[in-house]
C-alpha cells in the first residue's frame, strides 16, 4: 500500500507494471494531496510507503517518529515548465508574461504545493510577481493549474514538465522548461512507514538506475 502524491500518481501508474513483473508484488496506490496523506498517516492510515510531493512533510513525519528511521530519501526532482496552448514560439511565450493587461497565469498554490513555491520563486526572481502574482489563479495542486490552462480558462501556466510529457497529445502550443537553477529544487521525498518487504522493494526499485532513467525521460531530474 502506497500513499502517493497526486502529481506522481500517474507516473507511478505508468511505471508500475515494470515493478510488479520484476518483483512479483502488487501495487495498491492511494493518491492524494501530500497534506491530506500526512494527516491520515498521523491518524494511523494503513500505508506502507509514502511518496510525497515535497520534503517537508516526510521530515515532519520522521521527527514525530512515525517512519522507519533512516528511510527518508529524495526519489525525484521536479521540473517546472511555462506553457501556453496558444503560443507558437518560445519568445512569444515569454513575451506574454509582460503583456498588458496582464494575462491569466495559472500556478499551483505556493503555500501547498512545492511546484507552486518554485513557480512563485521564479516569478519573483524574474520580477513578474508584482504584476502577475496577486491575480494568478491558484490550483490546489499542480494538476489543477494544468486544468486551468488545458481548458483554456488561463492563457498560460507554470506546470510540471512531467505532466506535459506524459500527456503530450492533450497539450498543444509551446512549453518552455524553466531552468532548474532559477528556482529552489522541487525535492520529492519518500519515507517507509512500515517495514514490509514489498515496500522496501518498491523504494529500492524507484532508486534504481533504470527507473531513474525512465523518470528523466518523463521530465524529472534525478537527485
Amino acid at each position, binding site marked *: 500500500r502506497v500513499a502517493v502524491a497526486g502529481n506522481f500518481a500517474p507516473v507511478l501508474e505508468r511505471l508500475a507494471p515494470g515493478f510488479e513483473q520484476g518483483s512479483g508484488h502488487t501495487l495498491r496506490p492511494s493518491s492524494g494531496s501530500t497534506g491530506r496523506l500526512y494527516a491520515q498517516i498521523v491518524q494511523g492510515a494503513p500505508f506502507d510507503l509514502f511518496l510525497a510531493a515535497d520534503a517537508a512533510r516526510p521530515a515532519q513525519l520522521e521527527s514525530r517518529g512515525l517512519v522507519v528511521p533512516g528511510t527518508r530519501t529524495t526519489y525525484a526532482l521536479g521540473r517546472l515548465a511555462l506553457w501556453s496552448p496558444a503560443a507558437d514560439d518560445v519568445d512569444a511565450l515569454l513575451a506574454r508574461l509582460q503583456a498588458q493587461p496582464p494575462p491569466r497565469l*495559472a500556478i499551483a498554490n505556493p503555500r501547498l504545493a512545492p511546484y507552486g513555491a518554485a513557480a512563485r520563486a521564479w516569478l519573483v526572481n524574474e520580477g513578474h510577481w508584482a504584476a502577475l502574482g496577486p*491575480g494568478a489563479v491558484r490550483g490546489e495542486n499542480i494538476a489543477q493549474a494544468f486544468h486551468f490552462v488545458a*481548458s483554456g480558462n488561463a492563457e498560460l501556466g507554470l506546470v510540471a514538465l512531467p505532466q506535459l510529457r506524459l500527456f503530450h497529445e492533450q497539450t498543444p502550443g509551446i512549453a518552455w522548461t524553466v531552468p532548474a537553477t532559477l528556482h529552489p529544487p522541487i525535492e520529492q521525498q519518500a519515507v517507509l512507514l512500515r517495514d514490509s518487504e514489498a515496500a522496501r522493494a518498491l523504494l529500492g526499485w524507484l532508486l534504481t538506475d533504470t527507473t531513474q532513467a525512465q523518470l528523466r525521460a518523463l521530465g524529472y531530474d534525478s537527485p
Partner: protein
Amino acid sequence: MITAGDLEALRLTLMLAAASTAVLLLLGTPLAWWLARTQRRGKFVVEALVALPLVLPPTVLGFYLLLLLGAKGPLGGLLSSLGLRPLAFTFGGLVIGSVVYSLPFVVQPIQDAFVRVGPRPLEVAATLGAGPLDRFFTVALPLARPGLLTGAVLGFAHTLGEFGVVLMIGGNIPGETRVASIAIYDHVEALDYGGAHGLSLLLLGLSFTLLVAVYGLNRRVRVMRA
C-alpha cells in the same frame, strides 16, 4: 491565529452565499412551482435531471464547468465571441457554480411544499379575482413558507461549505475568489491546524448564530400569528 486574509475570505463567503441563495430562490422557486403543478408525462425526467448534479463529486462538477466556461467550451466561446470576459475565476462564475450544485437542495423542498399546499387555496383565490401571478405570490408562496425556508437554509449553508466547485472554477484568488471553505482547506493542507481550527470555529459560530436567528424568527412569526 485568524489573519486578515481569513476575514477577507469570510466576507467573500458570506457575499457568495447570499448571492447564490438569492439566485437559487429566484430560479428554484419557479422551477419547483412548475414541477409541483405540471401534469406532463415527462415531469419525472426533469425531476431526475435537477437532482443529477448531486451525484457528481463537486470537484468533478467544477472540472466540467471549467471545460464549459473555458475559451474552448461552448459557453466560454460564446461569451468571448460577444467580447465578454470568461466567467471562470470571477465572482460571477462562483455564483454559477454554487447555483448548479445547490439547486436540488433548493428545488426539492420547495416543490414538496407547493404540492402540499394543494389546489384549493388557489381555486379560492381565482374565484376572488386573483390571476396566476397574483395567486402565486399571495397564496402559494406564503403557504409554502416552511419549504422555502428549508430550501433557503440548505442552499445558503451548502454554499457556505461549498468547496469543490469553487476550488475548480474559482482559482483561489485572494480577495476575489478565495472563500472561507478554501481558506480552511488551505490551512489544513498546509498543516496549519491552528489556523484551520480558528477559521472553522469562526465560520461555525457565525453560521450557528445565523441559523438560530432564522429558525427563531420563523418560530416567532408563527407564534405571533397564532
